[in-house]
């Protein structure tokens, strides 16, 4: 076969390829590899991982990160589905864009700023408790700030935005006639949801939940500002190891643990996506 008369121009991917391979793929692979080595023994070893498992502060941090991430996904999901339903079925096309914008816009801005603004609001002297004190006259301050629930709260708002967006994207493509058919066959609104909307919008939820989990399990800013330093999450430990004690192999190990956790938790979700796609 002759050469095509017009050149293929695949070379455009080269800068991106070099960048991603050299500064994304290789660093991560190297980090994973580093976690398998140890100063003491030559060759591959799981010594770092057993050290990790043995150290209570580290495993506690991991559990806190997991608890945080899972709670965020659950809480965000509870609110996201009704919100997505609202945007899809209760609002006209024109208003939808506007309302979506209202929901999404704040998240274009700095994560740090948003976290810090919540810190101010939830602090003892902050407006929430100050107002409550004025209203009830009691010295109310549950010590909400600087705790795990506060971190969960902060990240849930982000999760709501993300999961609502993803679920909405799937929901809005559902053929309305399917819902009409359900009504014709005698089903109620709840049946419509269970039989028609839920299965078809599920892939959207899966993507949103997976992304939210990934962000939450590895987040640093929110737990630092809202969670306090007493009971750190994995991200906070990683940072203090890197910037504080400068223990690179340990940092690599912690990073690898993070990767493993993410893969273990997200992979089943993604398999679910394949499952639902095959179904519909």
């Amino acid at each position, binding site marked *: 076969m*002759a*050469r*095509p*008369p*017009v050149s293929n121009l695949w070379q455009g991917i080269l800068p991106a390829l070099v960048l991603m391979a050299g500064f994304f793929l290789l660093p991560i692979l190297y980090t994973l590899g580093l976690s398998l080595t140890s100063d003491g023994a030559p060759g591959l070893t799981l010594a770092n991982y057993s050290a990790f498992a043995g150290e209570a502060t580290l495993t506690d941090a991991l559990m806190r990160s997991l608890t945080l991430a899972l709670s965020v996904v659950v809480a965000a999901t509870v609110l996201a589905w009704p919100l997505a339903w609202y945007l899809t079925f209760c609002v006209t096309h024109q208003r939808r864009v506007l309302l979506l914008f209202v929901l999404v816009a704040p998240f274009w801005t700095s994560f740090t700023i948003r976290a810090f603004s919540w810190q101010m609001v939830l602090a003892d002297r902050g407006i929430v408790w100050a107002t409550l004190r004025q209203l009830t006259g009691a010295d109310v301050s549950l010590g909400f700030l600087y705790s795990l629930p506060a971190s969960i709260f902060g990240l849930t708002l982000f999760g709501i935005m993300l999961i609502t967006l993803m679920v909405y994207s799937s929901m809005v493509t559902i053929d309305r006639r399917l819902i009409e058919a359900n009504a014709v066959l005698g089903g109620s609104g709840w049946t419509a949801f269970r039989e028609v909307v839920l299965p078809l919008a599920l892939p959207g939820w899966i993507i949103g939940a997976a992304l939210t989990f990934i962000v939450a399990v590895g987040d640093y800013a929110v737990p630092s500002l809202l969670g306090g330093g007493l009971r750190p999450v994995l991200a906070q430990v990683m940072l203090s190891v890197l910037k504080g004690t400068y223990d690179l192999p340990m940092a690599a190990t912690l990073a690898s643990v993070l990767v493993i956790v993410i893969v273990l938790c997200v992979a089943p979700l993604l398999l679910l996506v394949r499952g639902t796609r095959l179904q519909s």
Partner: protein
Amino acid sequence: MRAKSVTLRGVSKSFGEVQAVCPQDLEVRAGEFLTLLGPSGCGKTTILRMIAGLEAVSSGAIFVGDEDVTGHPPNRRDTSIMFQDYALFPHKSVRDNIAYGLKMRGQSEAARSKAAEGWLERISLDGYGKRLPSALSGGQRQRVALARALILEPGVLLLDEPLGALDAGLRRHLQVELRRLHRDVGLTFIAVTHDQEEAMTMSDRIAVMRDGRIEQLGTPAEIYDHPETEFVARFLGRCSVIEGRVVAGVAGGMVQVETAALGPVFATGTAAQGANVRLALRPEALILDHSGPVRARVTDAVFTGNAVRLTLTAADGSGLELDLPRGAPVPATGTEAGLRLPPGAAILLAS
């Protein structure tokens, strides 16, 4: 401008497993207007794009004039192509669009301007030079696209569904315009279309294509009067098809065929005695005649503008079509009508 011939030798095209064009030979004479006609997916556009150099050939060779251009890029083949959507550059003015090819050849600003202005006049759009394509009508845009292609003085002009983007009234007008343009510039035109009326109006010759093959190549009259296959007969114009058996050969290039639908018929063509054949009947071939030897039942009558088309069912159940001139009395639906078929009016189909 000097017209060039185009020759395809054993040219084929495959996309992975799918063969879009089977190995073809085609000879387009210099200066003629040839149309590739066929339904979508028959490979006509693929052949055009291979001639243009936008698609590589899977096998074979393409010649423009005497030169083998098979591996050449699209701008070094002495061909110019006009796309179905005209592909005018939306951010360039009309004049810059027309002069683009000259700019790519390195001509000076002054020379390009002059040439572009000349062409603007030729297509009756002088004064429109500075406008953007979005400000023009469909017909005007087509003229600009033609000017942009012809300013390079190619030996061959390629047209991809040239009238596809226009409405019916404009289409008929421009069919004539294209034919006139062809005579004026004297170049070889190769066009692609799925519209048989368009092909017959504009072309010197038509190549009817199906499933990657050219089924028949000839002048509009040749193809209409002597379709070689049932596909070609049905694709160009309307026809009814009936079956029969060859009884004997008859002088004057005809055969006598015994048919269940119309009795003995003298059909144009040759075939072996005793062969089972199929015959094509154009609507104008059958004549309504009360005293005619054949009878059929009228099932529908449709007004088509300049004629009334009768649909009838023959004795053996075959469907027939017949065109009645305006003013002739129309038999009622459900009644029996008499038919007459002049000798030679039926066409023997090869397959």
